[in-house]
């Protein structure tokens, strides 16, 4: 099975990707992560439910990252029906501590549970902004299981961003 990751850094060396167990690590310059829909292939990261809902109908949108606390089931159902990825960045929990950590874990677990129920395709990424946030595929697999996935689902989540 081939695993992929997406980081917030502008450039990443893919010999490091092979060492960490990935086929490829996508950098921010490979796939644009934007707050508003654009004309090229992108991943939307937004807290506004309306913007997300609209982007899910856009052919250029590859997936969405939910930034806010509001999670609307209709949005996830639309993601499922349109074949868009629901992307979960683990930097929200690996770089957090205390109450923020618990809140973000609850949020990501809810996103996972609702996405699974809706039938949406999911992906897990590190979204590391530096060296200290980079994780190996082994760690990402355990993090996917920590969020509620079984082994098969965890492997699928690690591979889906590369499709």
């Amino acid at each position, binding site marked *: 099975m081939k695993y992929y990751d997406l980081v917030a850094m502008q450039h990443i060396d893919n010999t490091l990707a092979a060492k*960490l167990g990935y086929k490829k690590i996508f950098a921010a310059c490979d796939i644009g992560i934007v707050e508003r829909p654009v004309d090229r292939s992108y991943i939307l990261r937004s807290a506004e439910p309306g913007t997300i809902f609209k982007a899910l109908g856009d052919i250029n949108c590859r997936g969405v990252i939910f930034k806010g606390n509001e999670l609307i089931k209709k949005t996830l159902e639309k993601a499922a029906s349109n074949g868009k990825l629901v992307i979960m960045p683990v930097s929200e929990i690996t770089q957090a501590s205390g109450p923020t950590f618990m809140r973000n874990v609850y949020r990501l677990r809810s996103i996972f549970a609702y996405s699974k129920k809706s039938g949406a395709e999911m992906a897990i990424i590190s979204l590391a902004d530096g*060296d200290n946030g*980079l994780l190996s595929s082994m760690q990402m697999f*355990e*993090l996917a299981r920590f969020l509620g996935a079984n082994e098969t689902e965890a492997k699928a989540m690690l591979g889906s961003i590369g499709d």
Partner: protein
Amino acid sequence: MITKRKSRYILVEPSSTEARQIFTMLEAELLRILGQITYTNASPKVVAQYGRLFAVRVNRGFEKNAVLALSFAHVQGIGFRTIKISGTLKTLKECAKQYSLEPDKH
């Protein structure tokens, strides 16, 4: 009856080598993340160093907990990446040698 301790060894790479007493602080950080009970059951301990990589020994059955805990562990702004899990240090040593030989332009 004394039973043989069954261990697993995890090869870990820190994101930076510029930190003092990183191993002691890492063990304290793992205690904080795992909690007293799981930490006692897992007994993670840094046992060997191979260049910038190092090996952590954990009791068998707790290697996944340790891998997860290492994802959350940060010591002086340094993150930790797990490279390989093995039942013997010999395999890890060979893996560490291989890892260091491969060019890393990062």
